[in-house]
């Protein structure tokens, strides 16, 4: 992250930045003093990089709704604010967002939504461009890292000038794609005093109705503004084909059509510059709207009475690419090598030593419905663990287990259900669900996998970590204290590596007639600075090749063509879970026999 600092004495420097790094850099250059986010791929690195600037307060908030509200408060206090989240996080933050559109802001307020077409690391593929007209806030779409940085500055100005939150919408290829960016010194942010103004900030019905009118008037002014916004621009080439596009789709279009087409590249994509679109349309013979996911531009452009070709040829799902455009529009396919060798898939797996593994190994044996959550434990869905029944959204484990158990009881089928949730996810949106379960006399077992970090997104701290985003020590909230204070009487804290102890605790929780919580505490095996445990090996004399150890799915266990199994001692973390499941005591510490 040090690379984001300008060398001493330099006025400008070209840095190779991802879109996320560029947005953080933009925050620095254009005077942001405040940032809040909840981690989520592909948005995480925005806040991670913002924490490296001492001029900017930055926090990991407990969830996206909290981040947006914290950011709104900071804006009222006069800060320029960046709030960042993945696309589904915007659903969580939608409540304050839709009313922040009414209150407006004081310091410039940017919400960055990082969408994930193709769902590289997400549970759904929503096109958050639709949020802009829905919430009635202006939207900017960068097409590369340079624009990602520039639009932070433009966004702050639009936000302050039009008194509105601004949505910056990026996608995975912008967020994680790197390119060269001209970077400059930090500009001083404007000094903005807080003024009490109930008619603006208290959205009681009478005031809200007045602000509703303000939004319409603001949108009309923004529409005018978008006609002359320099980042909405026309690039003339051949006038046979006109292409209207935005964001990453612009790059794919340029890659394929080069100068053989003219482009209307839209950057302020709500509200759209209608005059500009009509004028462009009038000068070209045929128009393609090239956009990823929904026909967002297409629907609005068609509503202007402009005839275009769009989703009739371009898919409305998954990532777009130059290849798809070449094939669908030009009917061209580049020659590619064909192989008839079967290549085994290489799916991601729970790491060697992952403390989630023993819990799911036990749950699989129990054949109880397991309501899962969002995190690394998604990797317990595929074989060999196959231990999870549902994965929907952050927090849905506890609540779905409660609903399932209640309905089963109501219907007389009397099935118990287990909710499995991570520590960061518990603080994100598990607590309200647990309160519901206690309040409504639920009897589900809730298993909290406390691996001391937000693991899947790369180890961000959370309220239970005892450390802030800026690396300062802070109060550590203990999950068992939270759970007990909510009135759960049956609470156990268990070491996840203790297979017998874990199984007993789960069986007890399932038998218990009332809310029961088991906290499995063991740090993520990838966390730095953990004590090293001795690796294990398999005593081939004792091994019967029964392969029970393989059913744990640990990637340190190697199955050979002769059916024998060995342990990759470089990968093994010494968690001993495989040794505990081995019925023949064939798995021992490396050198263990010698040491006795």
């Amino acid at each position: 992250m040090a690379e984001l600092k300008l060398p001493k004495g330099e006025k400008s420097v070209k840095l190779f930045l991802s879109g996320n790094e560029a947005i953080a850099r933009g925050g620095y250059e254009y005077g942001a003093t405040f940032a809040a986010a909840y981690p989520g791929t592909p948005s995480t690195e925005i806040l991670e990089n913002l924490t490296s600037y001492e001029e900017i307060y930055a926090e990991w908030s407990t969830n996206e709704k909290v981040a947006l509200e914290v950011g709104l408060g900071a804006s009222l206090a006069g800060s320029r604010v960046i709030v960042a989240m993945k696309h589904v996080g915007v659903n969580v933050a939608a409540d304050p967002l839709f009313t922040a559109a009414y209150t407006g802001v004081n310091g410039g307020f940017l919400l960055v939504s990082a969408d994930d077409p193709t769902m590289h690391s997400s549970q759904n593929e929503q096109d958050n461009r639709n949020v802009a007209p829905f919430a009635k806030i202006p939207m900017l779409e960068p097409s590369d890292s340079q624009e990602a940085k520039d639009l932070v500055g433009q966004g702050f100005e639009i936000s302050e000038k039009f008194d509105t939150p601004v949505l910056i919408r990026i996608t995975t290829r912008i967020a994680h794609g790197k390119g060269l960016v001209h970077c400059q010194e930090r500009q001083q942010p404007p000094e903005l005093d807080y003024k009490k103004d109930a008619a603006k900030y208290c959205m009681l019905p009478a005031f809200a109705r007045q602000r509703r009118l303000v939004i319409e008037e603001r949108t009309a002014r923004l529409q005018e503004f978008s006609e002359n916004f320099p980042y909405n621009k026309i690039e003339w080439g051949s006038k046979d084909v006109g292409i209207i596009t935005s964001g990453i789709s612009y790059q794919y279009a340029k890659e394929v059509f080069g100068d053989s087409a003219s482009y209307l590249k839209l950057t302020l994509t709500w509200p759209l510059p209608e005059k500009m679109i009509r004028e462009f349309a009038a000068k070209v013979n045929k128009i393609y709207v090239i956009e990823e996911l929904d026909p967002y531009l297409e629907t609005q452009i068609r509503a202007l009475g402009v005839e275009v070709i769009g989703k009739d040829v371009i898919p409305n799902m998954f990532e777009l690419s130059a290849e798809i455009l070449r094939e669908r529009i030009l009917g061209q396919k580049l020659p590619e090598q064909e192989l008839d060798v079967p290549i085994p898939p290489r799916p991601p797996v729970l790491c060697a030593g992952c403390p989630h593994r023993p819990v799911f190994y036990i749950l699989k044996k129990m054949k109880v419905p397991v309501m899962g959550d969002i995190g690394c434990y998604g990797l317990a869905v595929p074989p060999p663990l196959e231990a999870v029944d549902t994965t929907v959204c952050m927090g849905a484990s506890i609540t779905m287990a409660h609903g399932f158990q209640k309905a089963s009881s109501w219907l007389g089928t009397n099935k118990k259900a287990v909710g499995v949730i991570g520590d960061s996810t518990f603080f994100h949106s598990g607590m309200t669900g647990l309160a519901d379960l206690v309040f409504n006399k639920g009897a589900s077992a809730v298993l909290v996998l406390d691996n001391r970090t937000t693991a899947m997104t790369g180890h961000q701290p959370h309220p239970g970590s005892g450390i802030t985003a800026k690396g300062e020590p802070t109060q550590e909230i203990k999950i068992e204290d939270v759970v007990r204070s909510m009135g759960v009487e049956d609470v156990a804290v268990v070491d996840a590596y203790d297979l017998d102890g874990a199984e007993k605790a789960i069986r007890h929780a399932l038998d218990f007639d009332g809310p029961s919580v088991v906290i499995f505490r063991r740090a993520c095996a990838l966390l730095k600075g953990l004590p090293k445990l001795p690796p294990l090996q398999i005593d081939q004399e004792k091994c019967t090749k029964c392969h029970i150890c393989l059913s744990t799915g640990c990637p340190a266990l190697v199955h050979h063509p002769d059916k024998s199994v060995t342990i990759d001692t470089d990968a093994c973390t010494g968690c001993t879970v495989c040794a505990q499941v081995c019925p023949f005591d064939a798995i021992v510490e490396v050198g263990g026999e010698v040491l006795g």
Partner: protein
Amino acid sequence: MLLLKLGVRFLAKVTNVLLVGVGGQGTLLAARILSGVLQQGGYDVKMSEVHGMSQRGGSVVTFVRYGDRIYSPLVEKGTADLILSFEKMEALRWLPYLKPGGTVVVNDFALLPAPVLMGKAEYPYNALEILKEQAETLIVLDAAKVAMEEAGNIRTQNVALLGALASHMDIDTEIWQQVIRESVPPKTVEANLKAFAAGGQQH
């Protein structure tokens, strides 16, 4: 300080490189060094990768494209000039991206994927022979051996592989050395420079 061979710079419009391997193998640092070198070389560069789930032992790819002006950050199938693979089977998986006449640099190293570890699928142990038939130029490097024997540090494998890649790119060695110096931990600079040099000579 433009140490590039100018002829190449103006002839080659866009060059496409794939760095492929397994999450956790260090493809990322290699891609960063490569991009840094290309930036120093005065090119427009774009690099694209996906973080998240794939880090947990999954198949990973980083696209690097460079030239006078780069638009798409993604490499299209059948257009890669170079594929640098940190693992044998991954080279096969990404082979459809190689353009006719393209070069494959592959680490002579097998990392078994979960279905093979569990005995549910077979590893293509003849990967190198298949690659030999399919790629016009194939460079095989035992990066672990080079890292241990020539550089004395097993963690220099990715830089050894970059050495092999560099021998098929027209960029001055001094630029590579400078970027490696700036990118690796200070204590390992000498070992990495040795690995880079040895990687370039081992074939």
